[in-house]
């Protein structure tokens, strides 16, 4: 690793963060869709959905909404990377005596920061809508840890189209299925209410275990095995996505 890696990554992170503060609409757009969903589910469908618990529906669905927030946020990660590739600035950085992988890591860290801000915005709106949690500091830290891991995993997925897409639409289209995955999980209705094959899929896909783990942490229930399954999914996706992203990256720079 180049001796300038940390310094260069910091400089480039500062650059991307400046992009975000100059177009805060990307953070607002990221937060608005999950907030709109939350409003709709709570005030339109919420009364008709039985979750098998007495607490308010916003408590039930917030974990899924948080995952949707990240899934829509990483579309911008791919977009920002794509714009750097297309504009030639990526090549400019790669031809300079700058630590080469810093360019990529700056985007990854920017994605993390941008998504964390969006998540905070969504949680604040949820609080206004009546979300309440008895979780203590350790539980909140655990939730933050899971969300950070989830964001990193999805960010490395986003790096792949960001580096290789030919068009802007192509760079962000990959996020649509990720945004819809929570609908086929325990995020909005208990999986027990789903028909057989759908239920099987829902119970074995990553979102369900992540949602269940976060929900248990928020409500102070024992997390059981869900948290380990959730962590295994996050780390697994992270490792595989990182490997593919690095392969794509090496192809680009050779």
């Amino acid at each position, binding site marked *: 690793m180049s001796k*300038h890696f940390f310094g260069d990554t910091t400089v480039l992170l500062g650059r991307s963060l400046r992009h975000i503060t100059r*177009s805060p609409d990307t953070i607002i757009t990221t937060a608005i869709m999950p907030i709109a969903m939350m409003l709709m589910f709570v005030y339109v469908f919420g009364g008709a959905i039985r979750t098998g618990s007495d607490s308010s529906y916003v408590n039930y669905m917030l974990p899924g909404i948080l995952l949707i927030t990240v899934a829509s946020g990483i579309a911008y990660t791919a977009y920002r990377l794509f714009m750097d590739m297309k*504009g*030639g600035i990526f*090549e400019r950085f*790669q*031809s*300079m*005596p700058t630590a080469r992988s810093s360019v990529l890591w700056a985007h990854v860290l920017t994605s993390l920061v941008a998504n964390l801000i969006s998540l905070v915005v969504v949680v604040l709106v949820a609080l206004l809508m009546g979300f309440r949690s008895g979780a203590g500091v350790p539980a909140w830290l655990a939730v933050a840890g899971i969300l950070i891991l989830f964001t990193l995993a999805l960010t490395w997925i986003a790096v792949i189209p960001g580096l290789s897409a030919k068009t802007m639409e192509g760079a962000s289209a990959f996020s649509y299925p990720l945004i819809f995955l929570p609908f086929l999980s325990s995020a909005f209705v208990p999986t027990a209410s789903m028909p057989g094959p759908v239920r099987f899929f829902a119970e074995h896909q990553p979102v369900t275990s992540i949602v269940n783990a976060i929900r248990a942490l928020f409500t102070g229930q024992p997390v059981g095995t869900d948290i380990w399954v959730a962590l295994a999914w996050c780390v697994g996706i992270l490792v595989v996505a990182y490997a593919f992203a690095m392969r794509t990256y090496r192809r680009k720079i*050779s």
Partner: protein
Amino acid sequence: MTTQQAPAIQVHGLEKSYKELHVLRGVDFEVARGSIFALLGSNGAGKTTAVKILSTLLKPDAGTARVNGFDVATQAANVRESISLTGQFAAVDEILSGRENLVLVARLRHLKNPGRIADELLERFSLTDAGGRKAATYSGGMRRRLDIAMSLIGDPPIIFLDEPTTGLDPQARIEVWQAVRELADRGTTVLLTTQYLDEAEQLADRIAILHEGRIIVNGTLDELKQLLPPAKVEYVEKQPTLEDVFLTLVGTKA
């Protein structure tokens, strides 16, 4: 290891294919220190490919290239210390101001006083007034000047300019030519690619024509002219060219 006498750039038997497309089929040339060398070729001839190999962005399939005495394949980091690339499309960060772009590059080149370097270059390229504005608001000529200014940071001894005036209006073109001449006057070696005969004629000490994957001629303008039958003497009334008319009307001294 760098001997001052050795040519700034030495290219031998360079080959590069994209799948079935053999773009470079054995390219040889040398560029003397402190000279301006023009690589002339029509669209698709492989000029950008050659420049990308020399600036360590692409690996050649065969052949060797040394830049500032360093092998592009095995001493890429040293090559990157020695060069600057101004790519075919102005690679500036549109969301940052002109000054911020310059400061960014100075930081990434690990220089002291990035702010002072930026201000000096803004002055030198007549961008001081526009320095605080987002680069997105710049005209084509201003962007190109900023792009070239970014390439001069750190005074690299060798500069690659890939089609620096393609798409510019005649006035902006002359501004860029002026900047290139100043560079050479300061002793920088310039390799520029162009599709325009007059650009090569105006600027270059030596001209090489890249055609069907090889350098088909390489020489000074006078040497190239002698390849043709001696000029006939004819008396014709000299008409101003459209370019002369345009430049007179818009008030630029050519």
